[in-house]
């Protein structure tokens, strides 16, 4: 569904991503794990068109999207839950979701999708008129996910959804991710919390300083000595 070949990204003279290659197949949850500064967020930003790569190719559903504008990429079916949630703090919960549906032309179906989001996140429905900046961290993360779902993505990019959340909430968020995936949305998940990420993902790639150093099924990676030492702390 998504295939990335020989991707090189620079920030000025800094070489942030070196020849990144990976694939995401339809229906999967794939996770990119790695430490701070490994290039996880850069990878997601490059896919969704927020950063232009120097070289390489990104294909989505067979079509090259390497140099397509970010707003067009959303229309093609890639949703993005950005790092640090980035909700619209001065807008209400409902207005945030409406922004998520901004590109939708089928307003009637969008209406059903609001209900879908509310049934998935009942807490958002309770706070529908509340200003989003006053939500708790977990609720803001739910809103960020709900907002991304409003564009009806085929592929959902999620950037550290566990960031800054209490362990119990992290569990809740991850079970929601699984739920979304069961509903037919492919998920590319970037995480520092390798333990949780590997527990729900089908496959995983390990990024280190801009390079993919390991890949395999989640089971293999969990079993690998290297990973256990470096990322799982066991």
């Amino acid at each position: 569904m998504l295939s990335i070949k020989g991707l090189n990204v620079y920030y000025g003279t800094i070489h942030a991503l070196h020849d990144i290659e990976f694939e995401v197949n339809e229906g999967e949850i794939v996770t990119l794990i790695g430490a701070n500064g490994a290039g996880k967020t850069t990878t997601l930003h490059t896919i969704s068109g927020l950063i232009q790569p120097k070289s390489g190719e990104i294909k989505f559903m067979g079509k090259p999207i390497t140099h397509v504008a970010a707003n067009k990429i959303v229309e093609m079916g890639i949703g993005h839950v950005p790092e640090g949630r980035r909700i619209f703090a001065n807008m209400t919960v409902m207005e945030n979701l409406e922004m998520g549906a901004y590109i939708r032309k089928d307003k009637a179906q969008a209406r059903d999708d609001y209900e879908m989001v509310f049934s998935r996140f009942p807490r958002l429905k309770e706070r529908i008129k509340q200003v989003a900046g006053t939500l708790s961290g977990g609720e803001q993360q739910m809103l960020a996910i709900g907002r991304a779902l409003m564009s009806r993505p085929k592929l959902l990019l999620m950037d550290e959804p566990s960031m800054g959340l209490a362990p119990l909430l992290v569990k809740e968020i991850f079970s929601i991710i699984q739920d979304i995936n069961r509903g037919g949305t492919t998920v590319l998940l970037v995480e520092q919390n390798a333990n949780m990420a590997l527990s729900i993902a089908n496959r995983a790639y390990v990024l280190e300083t801009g390079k993919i150093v390991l890949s395999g099924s989640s089971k293999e990676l969990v079993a690998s000595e290297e990973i256990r030492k470096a990322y799982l702390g066991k």
Partner: protein
Amino acid sequence: MKKNRIFNAVVILGASVVVFVILAALQYIGVIDEYNGQLLTLSGIYIVVALSLNLITGFTGQLALGQAGFMSVGAYTTAIAIMKFHVPMLLAILIGGLVAAVFGIIIGFPTLRLRGDYLAIATLGFGEIIRVLMINLGSLTGGAAGLKGIPAFSETENFVLDAVIKFSWVYVFAVITIVIISNLINSSPGRAIISIREDEIAANSMGINIAYYKIFSFTLSAFLAGVGGGLYGIYMGYLNPTMFGFMPSMNIVVIVVLGGLGSITGTVVASVAFTYIQEWLRVFKDLRLVIFGLALILVMIFWPKGLLGNKELSISGFLRKLFKRENNPERTVSQQNGSREGK
């Protein structure tokens, strides 16, 4: 939703006509003397220009310090069109706006790369370039001496009538500007613009074409500032480049920040207040700017979000409360992109 919109439109139109008739009549019979009439007219020009800046800075979130530059372009274009090419006044004002809008597109492009303080400095530079340009285009603009003898809005034998006509022109443009900005903000493109202010990356990931809306906002803003400039030139009767330097640009920023970034009513109130306070402080002579500066510091300490924050006062909302017309109970899903409550 539709009913609400019509109700809002009728109320706004009705209120602006009533206010107009009262103000114009009071001026005509002399209750508002000529001096205060002039100040009211000047407030109206500030409303147009300050709202244009609020669109960029308050709603789109791009700090711009060169608004007087757009005003200058509009003012000179309008004056030259009237004086050298004998274009009718209304058309000349619109041409002034259009030429300023072209500059808006040009200055809009750097905003795609520059943010915050960097953009502020770039727009500041733009304002200065325009000022220097106006000084050096002597044959067209009259250079440093300026343009004199711009014809007034009307030249009847009756001075009072002339003043009222002057006021009417400005008043109509101010109302149109308010209507344009408030309709824009409550529309779907308006939401896109506000989301850029809230979070650019998030807005982009929602599928909003940031480049397009930023340039759109700069262009519309420059157009309105140009129209304001055109009115200002005719109001003053003469133009010179120092009228549009750094300080006038800052004054516009001050009005917008005082009224509240992202508040239309705040800008309107602050425009009028700013015009009058500047005049009242004249009795303090040299201390005027000191007192004004102190007042600004106090307002920023006690009302850091400006007088109205990003809230709006509305007559229709007030009337609705008064008559308990609560036919707008819940903002339901079907109301997306509709008018906000209390608007």
